């Protein structure tokens, strides 16, 4: 990546080269954004190989529609949105996000300060990956991407009530599992997490 950077000093130069269809620019974009985009895809598609396929489809779509990018927002945000759309398309094809699994009611609330300092992004990713696909999709769209319930309902062709109920269940499940992690971490270190 360092070898290619001198050719594109700014992001606009990189995008101009992408619009010309230069393979050098395509490689540079992949090297720069593939990690983050893979994280996005893994959040929606738990299976890694499926997530890689979704990411490849996303990059193909981004390279093919680069002329539609107006450079009004950030290129990373535009690319992330494409990846989310591709992931939703994959889920729509598999219909797996419609599954509803009953989750036990929340018993204890986790310590968020401890989770913020002690847990890494990969730990949270792994936790999200354990969510049932329907809950995971709605939680990702609402909590991480910032979609509203109306947008989620429109995107997934469900009602807003369904979106709200599934988000609530996803939160309960995550809180319960965070509390469980906290307990396991305390037992491993011989201390109890401070509330």
């Amino acid at each position, binding site marked *: 990546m360092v070898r290619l950077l001198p050719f594109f000093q700014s992001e606009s130069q990189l995008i101009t080269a992408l619009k010309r269809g230069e393979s050098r620019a395509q490689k540079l974009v992949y090297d720069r954004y593939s990690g983050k985009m893979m994280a996005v895809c893994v959040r929606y598609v738990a299976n890694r190989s499926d997530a890689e396929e979704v990411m490849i489809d996303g990059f193909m779509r981004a390279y093919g529609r680069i002329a539609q990018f107006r450079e009004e927002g950030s290129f990373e945000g535009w690319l992330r949105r494409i990846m989310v759309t591709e992931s939703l398309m994959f889920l729509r094809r598999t219909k797996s996000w419609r599954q509803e699994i009953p989750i036990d009611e929340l018993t204890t609330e986790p310590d968020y300060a401890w989770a913020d300092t002690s847990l890494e992004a990969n730990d949270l990713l792994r936790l999200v990956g354990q969510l049932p696909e329907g809950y995971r999709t709605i939680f990702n769209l609402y909590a991480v991407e910032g979609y509203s319930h109306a947008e989620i309902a429109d995107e997934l062709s469900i009602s807003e009530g369904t979106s709200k109920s599934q988000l609530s269940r996803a*939160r309960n499940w995550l809180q319960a599992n965070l509390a469980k992690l906290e307990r396991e971490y305390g037992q491993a270190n011989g201390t109890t997490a401070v509330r």
Partner: protein
Amino acid sequence: MDKPTEQQPLDSLFRRKLDEASVQPGADVWDRLSSRLTAAQPLPVEKPTRRLGVFWYGSAVVAAAACLWLVFVWTSPERSQVTVATTSGITQTKSSAQKSGEGQQKEQLPLANQQSDRTQLANSNINAKAKQGNSSEQANRTELQNRVRLARAEEKAVETQRVSPSSMGNEVLEKPVVAQLQTQANSQKIAEPVGQPNPIATATSKSQETINETQRTLIVQVPDIHKTRHESVMTSEENNLAHTASVESKETKLSRAFRQIKRIKEGEVFAKVDNARGDDDESGLFDRLVRSGRAKDNTTKQQK
């Protein structure tokens, strides 16, 4: 995108952590992506533009060539011959004869050549039409009759041009020569009996000797055409004779008038002639008047 109204600590924790999350894909992902990119590299947009460009360039070249050809045809000196050829077959024969290099010799003997060319044209038309079968024979006859009529009209026009008194001078001097040639050619044709097996071949000039044998046999199979041709030749000859007769009669009338004027002017000669003719001749009025005047003078002198 509307921000969620309900911002819980769980959501903010996951957003903060997952926004910056990075998962390295497998090493072969780029290879798979690049292979798909190269498979999609032949852009479907460029090929149609090239084809369109070739199409437009080709059409432009064809249009330019057509324009050049039209301009060439329009400005070429042979254009009149070509356009006339569409209306009259005889003029087409003329133009073809001029193209073959006979040129001025043809112009010197136009009527004789016209006769031979006309027969050639009739033969060629007959050959062409005879191939179509017996069903179209009637239509061929009517077409040939029309062409013969056209030929007659053109012949009359040419002859009146040459014989008309308005064109006095060199053309008038050429007239007897042309008439003699025509009469020679026509006399040959008229002298031939109609019922002979190959009359057209014998009546035509040397230029017709080049016609191949297949054409000759086809000509013999259609005797009516020969009749119409013969009739056309006959009528043209009659017309020529009538023209010459009318011209001669006009000339004799004019010459008589000139002579009478001359006689009136030259009264003495006129009187002498009248004296020689005798008193009974009414043409010697002047002499009679002179004599009656002298007789009156003599009687008055005698009375005195």
